[in-house]
């Protein structure tokens, strides 16, 4: 039986990697993948706590999140493709139309 804390630590690291990736990477595809990392960190938390508390609802949540994530990636990739077609780039640095 793996220690709950160890799992939470992994989950934390995973989430941190995700958030740092979102904030510092420039490629929109990579940012999308980092968002997936953050979601999976959250899933890991759900499953860990479900195992720890003996309830299955947490696992059900994890399945739900996976479904959401799939939908989200589909939408996100579509956006990236549209963006690439429009601007010939997927570097978020170059996309600053909202600059004041």
């Amino acid at each position, binding site marked *: 039986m793996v220690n709950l804390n160890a799992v939470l630590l992994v989950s934390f690291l995973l989430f941190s990697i995700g958030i740092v990736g*979102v904030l*510092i990477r420039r490629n929109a595809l990579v*940012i999308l993948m980092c968002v997936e990392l953050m979601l999976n960190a959250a899933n890991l938390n759900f499953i860990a706590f479900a195992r720890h508390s003996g309830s299955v609802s947490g696992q059900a949540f994890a399945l739900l999140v996976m479904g959401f994530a799939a939908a989200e990636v589909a939408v996100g990739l579509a956006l990236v493709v549209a963006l690439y077609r429009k601007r010939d780039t997927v570097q*978020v640095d170059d996309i600053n139309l909202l*600059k*004041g």
Partner: protein
Amino acid sequence: MSADMTLAHAAATAASQPSSLLWLIPFLPFFGFLINGLSGRKLRNTTVVDFFALGSVGIAFLLTLWHFIQLIGLPADGRSLHQSLWTWFNVGGAHVLGGMSTYKIEWAYKFDVLSGCMALLVSGAGFLIHLFSTGYMAEERNDGRYYRFMAYLNLFVFSMLNLVLGANIMMMFLGWEGVGLCSYLLIGFYFEKEFAAVAGKKAFVTNRIGDFGFMLGFFLIFQVFGSLDYDTLMGSVREVANLPLITLFGHTASPTWWFNLIGCCLFVGAMGKSAQIPLYVWLPDAMAGPTPVSALIHAATMVTSGLYMITRLNFIYVNAPVALAVVLAFGSLTAFVAATMGLAQYDIKKVLAYSTVSQLGFMFMGMGAGAFSAGMFHVFTHAFFKASLFLGSGAVIAACHHEQDMRNMGGLKKLMPITAMSMILATFAIAGIFPFSGFFSKDEILWKVFEGWYQHGHYTGPTLNLVAWILGMLGAFCTAFYMTRLIAMTFYGNYRGGGEDPYGHTVQSEAHGHDDHAAHDDHGAHGHGHAPVHAQENHVHELDQHHDHHVDDPEDHDIVPGHHPHEVSWRMWLPVAVLAGLAVVGGFLNYPESLHRVLPIVPAELFSKWIEPLLYQVAPAHHGEHIPPTIEYGLMAWATLIWAPGAMLLAWWIYKVDPTWSRAIAFVERFPNLFRWVNAKYYVDEFYDAAIIEPLKRFSAQLWSFDTWVVDGMVNGAARVTLIWAELMHWVDEYLIDGSVDLVEYMVQESSAVFRGLQTGRVQHYAFVMFLGFLVFAFWKFIA
């Protein structure tokens, strides 16, 4: 007033016959003008131009003749044909003496005893002059100006016919201005030459001065009579003359006073058109035009319009003794002064020009003495002989290759006999030798003037008549002299233009080309003003100059040694001969009563009787036996046997018998100043220049500077004020208005800078802020 008083003119008014073809007489030449003027430029063949120009005037002449024959067939007091075409304009509502005018000016023609004669003269002489022009203007056929000349001539004939045939003063005025325009156009025909353009302008401006007087005159007539129709005026003049007082423009005076004023104003107009002192100056300069123009303007037509006007309005003048005296005074002065100017001219056209001025003076003398028919008769005889002389001189000039200086002519009688004979006959006529026409007309005038003083042996007439008669006699002497001089210098002796000049009379010609360079009076003192003595002194030198000149200027062929002029073509000599023939026999149309008694075979005073219905009768017509006084025969014999032949023989003796002209030269040497004055026409042009034109020019220069500095200054000043104001407004707009708007904008921009910095547009910045927000939220929850 007695019942048997004949108001012949009133009867004529009543008995006027309508005629439907009258309008064609003036309008045919007008159509000719339109056709030639509008299409002549495109016509390659100038024969077509000839066809329309001569055809229209020729048919007009035949129509005039036809009407004239109709007129002869009518009873004496009903000799009048009229045609009213349309109402020209309505002057109803104008305030005239005796209330409101209801008068409508008609475009109407009237063919009566006077206008009929004048129309015959204008169209007849006009046709001959057209015919002459076809020969004289032959050079112009090639350079595209020919149609223009013919169109102008047609327009001239139209205007002149309109002047004489018009049934009211307005129609006369239309023609009056029309001939003024045409003389301007014709004199300035060679407008590329400056002197011709200047001469045209001079004629036009001088005539305008006269026209102003004429206009004032007929405005006054309209004010007094309320009408401009000759018939109405004649019918009502007696009534007006019997009014006690006439008040116009706040001035009250007797009708005679007003008639005098009208007469004087109208005479100013006549002075301009008929070239009387002081407005005669344009006429000698009119020599700048082609010679047919000179003949047309001088002899036949334009200059007679003043006389026609006075005869037409004789009912005014008969009631205006002062105006008549003015006419007599100016007429006699002109007759004498212009004749003396003719004595010292060398240009053949100039001699004739001054001669014309002088003869016109004679006509006015006759009118001034109240002898309208005598003055009018001189118009006709003068038209014959002067047109003949002018066209003859044109033929001479053309034959001598546009040489106009008589000193370079001579001996032409052998070379062009028809022209020479015609001109010699015309000279006899103008000199007043019995039985040529000039004798009958001129002596009638002089007799009437003398009679005005003589008063059937009472010697009670005004002294003015005696003075005028003396001036007239002197003028007649000068006339006979200068005309014989012209003939002797031109037709006798050797042809000096051919280099055959043993006495050195030739001079370097300034009068070259179709025209008269000496029209510019600047030349007066040193150009033609060469005394013969100078010509002789310089003659070798000048002959050399001729050769140089000839080499320099290929167009200059006036002196070609060995070249002789020859007779001109029939188109040119025929009109000269026809007119000379008329000049010979024309006088018998007004054969004087006194000679009728001696030679009863010739009917007496045809012309006077013919024109009598038109003349206003002050007193009952005198039908009793009129025994001419012996003195009339005496004066006649004196004039035609001693006076005129004496002058002719004197000129003959000086210029023909002695081919060296030594007496003339001696005379000039003896009185150099006298010669210079006469040759320079008494410096009248210079006087006008100094006394009128120069002050006018200075005055207009002052007006110009007033205009430049004051009027323009005000305008420019207003512009400058506006400009400065606009500058100010511009500044206000730019700095105050735009400034405040810009300031608001600037402030908004500046104040938004800090917020603008937040909006980097980078999605990761936003995500980072959002993440920080989560952290803060989580931290706050953790603490709470």
